[in-house]
């Protein structure tokens, strides 16, 4: 009995330790790379069933713990569990179709979807179906939220705020990004870049392959960049924000109760303060009369770093690993593509700087409310 209790406790502690976003992100990134590499193996129905069984077993076992169960079974969090299962299902389904098609392509057969003669007109067929789906989903959501008594938070009050104050689930990922970025960046610039970037895709990527059928072999870069962004930078932050953030937006392991009194998290410093030493300048700040260039000079290390990241790196890549890509895309497309991709990479890069070096901002032109 004692041995068993010890094992369970160490399992809990191990999971709490593993649940730090840095480790979760690393594990998921490795999992994603492995999943894309061996996509023809694990997506076979037998393997996939085994994986699904494993996932359900882990979820059920973890659900035996009262602390975790309490977090997951909150009415507004239950849906997130559903989201995880759906995400796994659709990633499997997409990659499975891709595996089938890629096998067929190797045998010289046309893709699975090519033979299907089920084309119909968007209007009225698709649009009408969408309307029906919309009404059905709304009805389902209303009934579900009544059944689980979906919480309406109390009215806003100037003295007491909910702690933690969580956004609705679809914005929790954005809220989690805000932990690492300045509001105008995480709240305005990054979302705009996301929307613009997604809308620009058809113009950037004019490769006709993979249009109308699933494939990974013909579109490795496109598929993996999309999956990485969607899973690691959008879904994972939602999970972290929902299940691992407690009072004061502090990190808690899945099996740790949300006790509001925990130690303060690590103290952060700006990159400039790390380079020049001391944060005295930050505290004192330059007066309004100070010359404009003074903050810029102070932030030079970060500005140089970002310049290297956004300009020099894509240039170097275009001469080396991505030479073929640049030639195929042309200079202008390549430039837009690389700036978008680097912007996306800024998110995990900034997270890494925070986790490893306790960096608050790379460039902190605080005097002008401009922080990156």
């Amino acid at each position, binding site marked *: 009995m004692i041995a068993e209790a010890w094992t369970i406790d160490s399992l809990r502690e191990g999971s709490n330790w593993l649940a730090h976003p840095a480790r979760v992100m690393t594990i998921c990134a490795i999992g994603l790379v492995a999943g894309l590499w061996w996509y023809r193996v694990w997506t076979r129905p037998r393997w996939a069933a085994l994986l699904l069984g494993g996932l359900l077993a882990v979820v059920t076992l973890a659900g035996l713990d009262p602390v975790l169960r309490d977090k997951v079974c909150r009415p507004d969090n239950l849906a997130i569990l559903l989201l995880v299962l759906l995400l796994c299902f659709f990633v499997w389904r997409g990659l499975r179709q891709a595996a089938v098609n890629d096998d067929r392509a190797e045998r010289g057969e046309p893709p699975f979807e090519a033979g299907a003669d089920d084309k119909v007109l968007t209007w009225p067929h698709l649009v009408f179906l969408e309307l029906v789906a919309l*009404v059905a989903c709304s009805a389902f959501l209303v009934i579900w939220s009544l059944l689980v008594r979906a919480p309406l938070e109390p*009215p*806003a*009050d*100037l*003295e007491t*705020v*909910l*702690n*933690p*104050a969580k956004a609705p689930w679809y914005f929790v990922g954005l*809220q989690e990004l*805000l*932990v*690492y*970025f*300045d*509001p105008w960046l995480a*709240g305005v610039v990054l979302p705009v870049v996301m929307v613009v970037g997604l809308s620009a895709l058809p113009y950037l990527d004019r490769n006709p392959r993979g249009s109308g059928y699933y494939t990974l072999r013909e579109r490795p870069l496109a598929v993996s960049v999309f999956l990485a962004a969607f899973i690691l930078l959008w879904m994972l932050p939602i999970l972290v924000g929902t299940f691992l*953030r407690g*009072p*004061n*937006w*502090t990190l808690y392991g899945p099996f740790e109760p949300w006790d509001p*009194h925990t*130690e*303060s*998290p*690590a*103290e*952060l410093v700006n990159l400039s303060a790390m380079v020049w030493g001391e944060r005295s300048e*930050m*505290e*004192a*700040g*330059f*007066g*309004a009369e*100070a010359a404009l260039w003074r903050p810029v000079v102070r932030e030079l290390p970060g500005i140089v770093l970002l310049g290297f990241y956004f300009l020099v790196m894509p240039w170097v890549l275009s001469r080396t690993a991505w030479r073929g890509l640049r030639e195929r895309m042309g200079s202008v497309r390549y430039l837009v593509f690389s700036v978008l991709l680097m912007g996306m990479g800024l998110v995990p890069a900034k997270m890494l700087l925070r986790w490893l070096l306790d960096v*608050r*901002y790379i460039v*902190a032109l*605080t*005097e002008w*409310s401009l*922080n990156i």
Partner: protein
Amino acid sequence: MLTAAGVGWTALTLGGTVGVLGVPRLLAPNVTAEPEVLVDIGELAGYAQVSLGTVDERFKRQGFWVVRLPEGLVALSTSCTHLGCLLNWDDRDGRFKCPCHGSGFDLAGVNREGPAPRPLERLRVTVEDGRVIVDGRRRFRGERGEWGHSESMVRLEPSAES
């Protein structure tokens, strides 16, 4: 008239109209955190007795805390300099903590943890006839070097017991 499609479309139209009409109400905030303009927070003599590091939470509803620092008395804004969430004073850690993205500010209002890029704003404090008046219209921002301004703090002797 009373076909399924008729009922469905009518319900959809009605629901849609109500929804659209509800949008302006949704967009209007329930509470605005505008600090009141002039607040008389009491006798200066009373505050001189207060021990160092005391945070007076009585004026949170008006949008500020009164904090006794070694050098004097300051009125710190209660809104986080990251995205403006309302902070909580945590006396165990001695930090003003943000429930939104985890920023933490020390007693002087300096941003220590989390994403907040700049220190808490200090409201203007003046003394009139021995009473301390806080003025929410004028705010002093540390990162702009404004904390040296004479009205950003009521200077007090560091005499009170520590």
